[in-house]
């Protein structure tokens, strides 16, 4: 494929695919964490982030059964995106697993299957999704890319809240690395969302409907609600945290037709965080 054709569309997919960031295992400060263990709270949060990250392929299924899979530019992006997310999950898993007395380690090692996904619902889901999404057509892609952008807004605030809570330079640096890897995901999804939402009424209506229905970032719905509640409460306990949640909502407000939904503030309220 030629350079110019893609460059005309903004985000440079080819450059992104070429410079994918793989395994972090050699750069993990496991020795430092062994010497001075992370707090159990942080380990619990990292286990949660790992499990949410591992839902990537599960989520990819829901995207691919829709017209999104027709878009070769989008699928080229997703191949690299899934790869980078795989290695972020792997890094979290190694850190959690190395914390000897961690109750969450087992979930990662033994729980290599996505146990918590409700079997029956999961089996029926792609059928409903495929039929509905294919009747709706291309507009459904807007919901996927908007979700992708919000996932990144959310993760950035989570990383930064976690860095503050643990206050360990090694962890802060690591999360900054992951945030950097993800910044390209954000740029892509945001650019796609801005364009697709601006394009059609249908795209805006569908996406707004998705965000109005007890929306949560990808993978969180499949986690036990006690864990989700824990993450909301521990990372967003005070006025400063309210600012973080509000910042995500302001970014969502800036997307065409998505104003005033208070998506994450409402989620934070549902899960008992200060908001």
């Amino acid at each position, binding site marked *: 494929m030629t350079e110019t054709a893609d460059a005309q569309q903004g985000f440079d997919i080819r450059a992104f695919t070429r410079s994918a960031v793989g395994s972090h295992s050699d750069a993990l400060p496991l020795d430092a964490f062994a010497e001075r263990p992370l707090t159990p709270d942080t380990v619990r949060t990292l286990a949660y982030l790992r499990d949410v990250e591992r839902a990537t392929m599960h989520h*990819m299924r829901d995207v691919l059964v829709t017209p999104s*899979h027709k878009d070769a530019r989008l699928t080229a992006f997703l191949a690299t995106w899934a790869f980078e997310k795989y290695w972020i999950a792997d890094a979290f898993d190694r850190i959690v697993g190395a914390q000897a007395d961690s109750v969450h380690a087992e979930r990662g090692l033994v729980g290599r299957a996505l146990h918590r996904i409700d079997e029956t619902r999961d*089996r029926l889901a792609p059928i409903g999704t495929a039929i509905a999404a294919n009747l709706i057509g291309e507009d459904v892609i807007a919901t996927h890319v908007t979700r992708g952008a919000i996932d990144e807004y959310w993760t950035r605030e989570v990383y930064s809240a976690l860095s503050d809570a643990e206050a360990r330079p090694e962890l802060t640096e690591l999360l900054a690395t992951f945030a950097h890897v993800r910044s390209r995901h954000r740029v892509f999804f945001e650019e796609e969302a801005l364009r697709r939402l601006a394009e059609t009424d249908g795209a805006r209506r569908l996406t707004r409907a998705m965000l109005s229905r007890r929306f949560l970032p990808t993978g969180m719905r499949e986690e036990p609600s006690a864990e989700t509640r824990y993450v909301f409460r521990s990372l967003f306990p005070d006025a400063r945290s309210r600012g973080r949640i509000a910042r995500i909502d302001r970014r969502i407000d800036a997307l065409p037709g998505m104003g005033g939904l208070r998506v994450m503030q409402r989620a934070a309220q549902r899960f008992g965080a200060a908001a």
Partner: protein
Amino acid sequence: MAFDIDKYTKTSTNVNWSDLDFDEFRTNPLPPDTLRSIRYMADVEYHTVCYLRDMLVTPSHQDADVTGFMTMWNREEFWHGEALSAVLAAHDITLEFDELKSKRLKLGWKDRLDPVKQSVLSNLVGKDFVAVHMIWGAANEWSAVAAYNRMADLEGHPILAELLRRIAKQEARHVAFYATQARERLAKSVVAQKFARFALSSFWGPVGSTIMDEAEVKHVMSHLMGGPDGRKAASAIDAHIAKMPGMEGLTIVNDSLDKRGIAA
């Protein structure tokens, strides 16, 4: 042979061709027939995501080892598409993302209903269906290895041959994954064996035959699998499949060649 998923993911990389002198294609270009086959292969590699989609609607994706593999596999195949597309570009043939998109759009309703069909089928049969996916994947990957090696031999072009060997080497790792999974899962269940045998003998077709025009399928099959040497490669794939639990006597590759009237 066990498959070490951690080792595989850790060493998964995009196929490299930066050290290969593609200018060689300017002075020593490939013949049109070969370019036509490469074009087919590039298309098929780029469409891996469609197969990924089909696998993800089955219970296969709930196993973290399987999802780890699929993440890497999907990306490696994408890069095979990129590498082959670079060979085409050296011959001034361009393959754009938009073109791939229109091909996927052309697949139309048949394709749209596919995940539904897969979902219904696979969930009726449950875990046994995963075995079908695995033997299916193994058959496809064996075919890919054979096709790339055949083309490298046939063409005898030093740069092309080296690139194709590199791609085939990655495909061989995919074979290892699928074959290991298929063997284990088939061995565990007679129902899975029966279902796999039925699926392969009734529905299997050469890789790419569901997305490419029949004329293109025929071209590639006679180019790479026709004649005594081609048939020998085809029979080797059939022999691999026949060694799987419950698959004795299947000759799906040769059958598909016979059906298309490809010379033996």
